[in-house]
């Protein structure tokens, strides 16, 4: 198996700021994309000969395209506010994982080639030449940033390390040094339609299975429709919802909510991915190509509304960028938000009184909620400030009896990343993922011990997979992570009975048993 041995950090009573240890993470690297992963995205297949020139040109291009990028590189006054805010620093002690340390890896090159002082007196202003070593350092440390933006909450200038990280990855891609994990996945979306590479028939088979499962349990024919023209709602959800656990339990929940709400809805093979890794690699062009699939699907199916399933960065792209990337969405029903989050949809139905719950179905669990970075710090839900914090919690509290929050400085806009976001959810970065999870694990362990919490609920596919993997490193059980709509699914009472002929497999010979 990939990945060297490493020590799992020991959890302490509080989230402590560790003493610096230089170079603890400099050995980290991740698999480099091959030509077949690079070229379909419009990047050179391998490191180009004149890479230095191309990289500096690319930096200049990004500086001219994104004013924010230049402001972030110019504005830092080394005040130190960000230094103890990054989960990767807290878990690894490596000063280059301090947000300012990470930014400086790029800033020193910016100063050398784009500022007067750096061109003529580089040593005085910490400017440095772009060398092979710098490229390697960028590749390592910009793949130790999950672009969670926690540091930017505390920066008095609002410097967003995520944007610097995205720019660094874009520059690396432009010289042919891409990351295999992200770029292979984006290629699958362009070619097949989703991160997993699930072809239509596999999605169809999976959805039929879900219909059978719900029928077996409740004797109600809840439908999980695919590519139904004329449906009112297009649900766009991460492809992990079709594939992994506990994600799929959330998907089952969305279907039950739509069923009880009595709305017509559909999934789409063309838009079978909510996630958009184009954002992780800072590539506007790839992010746009991925987003356009949603627009095309919505037009082809003739839907009136678009609802997004539980996916963190998808919601950032959807809420903050979709309209400029793939809009205008003037063909959708203007009475509904474009797009709408599934938690918003469910809470609306709860408030209208269309859904009935038996909360005791979740009495075997006591829940806490993990705010996913991109939802918490880059979006909103509903029409009130803070809706992205309140709405998922209100949904959870409507379906469970036992709920407790984690410590105030680890939730809401101060939430700690799961450790696997931003394109790091790959086995070759397991050490980074485990160490970066430390602050979240500390807060979760504390709420388990103090309040008797047993399960962590999340609304992000990456968070769910990451926790499944890192819990065991910290002595917890991989099944302690649940989807929010899994809790909804457990508690919802299916009152809308269906005629027998709608049952899965009705009229077919039962030759299975």
């Amino acid at each position, binding site marked *: *198996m*990939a990945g060297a041995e490493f020590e799992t950090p020991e959890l302490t009573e509080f989230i402590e700021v560790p003493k610096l240890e230089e170079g603890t993470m400099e050995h980290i690297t991740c*698999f480099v994309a091959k030509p077949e992963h690079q070229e379909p995205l419009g990047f050179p297949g391998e490191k180009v000969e004149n890479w230095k020139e191309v990289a500096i040109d690319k930096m200049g291009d990004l500086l001219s395209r994104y004013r924010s990028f230049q402001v972030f590189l110019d504005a830092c006054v080394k005040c130190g506010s960000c230094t103890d805010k990054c989960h990767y620093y807290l878990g690894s002690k490596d000063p280059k994982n301090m947000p300012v340390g990470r930014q400086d890896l790029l800033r020193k090159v910016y100063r050398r080639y784009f500022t007067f002082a750096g061109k003529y007196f580089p040593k005085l202003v910490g400017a440095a030449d772009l060398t092979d070593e710098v490229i390697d350092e960028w590749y390592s440390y910009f793949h130790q940033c999950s672009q969670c933006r926690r540091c930017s909450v505390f920066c008095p200038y609002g410097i967003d390390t995520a944007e610097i990280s995205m720019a660094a990855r874009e520059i690396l891609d432009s010289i042919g040094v891409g990351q295999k*994990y992200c770029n*292979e*996945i984006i290629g*699958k979306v362009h070619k097949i339609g*989703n*991160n*997993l*590479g*699930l*072809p239509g*028939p*596999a999605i169809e*088979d*999976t959805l039929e*299975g*879900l219909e059978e*499962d719900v029928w077996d349990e409740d004797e109600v024919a809840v439908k999980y429709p695919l590519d139904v023209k004329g449906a009112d709602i297009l649900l766009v959800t*991460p*492809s*992990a919802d*079709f*594939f*992994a*656990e506990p*994600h*799929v339990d959330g998907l089952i929940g969305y279907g039950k909510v739509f069923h009880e709400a009595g709305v017509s809805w559909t999934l789409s093979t063309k838009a079978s991915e909510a*996630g958009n890794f184009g954002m992780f690699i800072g590539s506007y062009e790839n992010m746009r190509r991925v987003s356009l699939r949603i627009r095309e699907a919505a037009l082809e199916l003739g839907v009136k509304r678009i609802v997004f399933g539980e*996916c963190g960065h998808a919601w950032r792209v959807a809420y903050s960028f979709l309209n400029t990337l793939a809009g205008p969405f003037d063909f959708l029903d203007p009475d509904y938000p474009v797009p709408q989050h599934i938690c918003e949809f469910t809470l609306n139905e709860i408030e209208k009184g269309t859904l009935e719950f038996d909360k005791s179905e979740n009495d075997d669990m006591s829940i806490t909620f993990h705010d996913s970075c991109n939802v918490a710090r880059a979006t909103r839900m509903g029409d009130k400030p803070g809706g992205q914090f309140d709405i998922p919690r209100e949904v959870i509290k409507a379906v469970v009896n036992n709920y407790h929050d984690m410590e105030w400085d680890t939730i809401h806009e101060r939430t700690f990343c799961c450790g696997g976001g931003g394109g790091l*959810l790959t*086995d*070759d970065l397991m050490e980074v993922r485990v160490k970066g999870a430390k602050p979240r694990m500390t807060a979760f362990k504390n709420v388990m011990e103090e309040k008797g919490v047993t399960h962590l609920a999340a609304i992000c*596919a*990456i968070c*769910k*997979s990451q926790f499944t993997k890192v819990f065991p490193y910290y002595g917890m059980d*991989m*099944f302690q992570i649940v989807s929010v709509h899994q809790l909804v699914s457990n508690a919802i009472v299916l009152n809308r009975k269906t005629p027998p002929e709608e049952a899965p497999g009705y009229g077919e010979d039962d030759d*299975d048993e």
Partner: protein
Amino acid sequence: MAIEINGKTFETDEEGYLTNLSDWEPGVAEAMAKEDDLELTDEHWEIINFLREYYEEYQIAPAVRVLTKAVGKKLGKEKGNSKYLYALFPYGPGKQACRFAGLPKPTGCI
């Protein structure tokens, strides 16, 4: 990277997955399992064979739920869950079992 079985070489990628699906033979699974300190039993083979059949039809590994359901139908309900699969394949049915079966690694937010 590569694995050697009786003088025959099987090319693998950097993560240990077989480069050519069609190269696969049962010995590949045995050799990979040995490297992971696992001994393949009939229970493991049930899963590996199912994965290969499913892949042949759908060009992708089955979703975890599809797999657990198939196992439950074949081997009894008490075995139709992820816990059982993780007991057989500690690195995860999706990744470890796929590797043994010669399938490409599932990618994405999983």
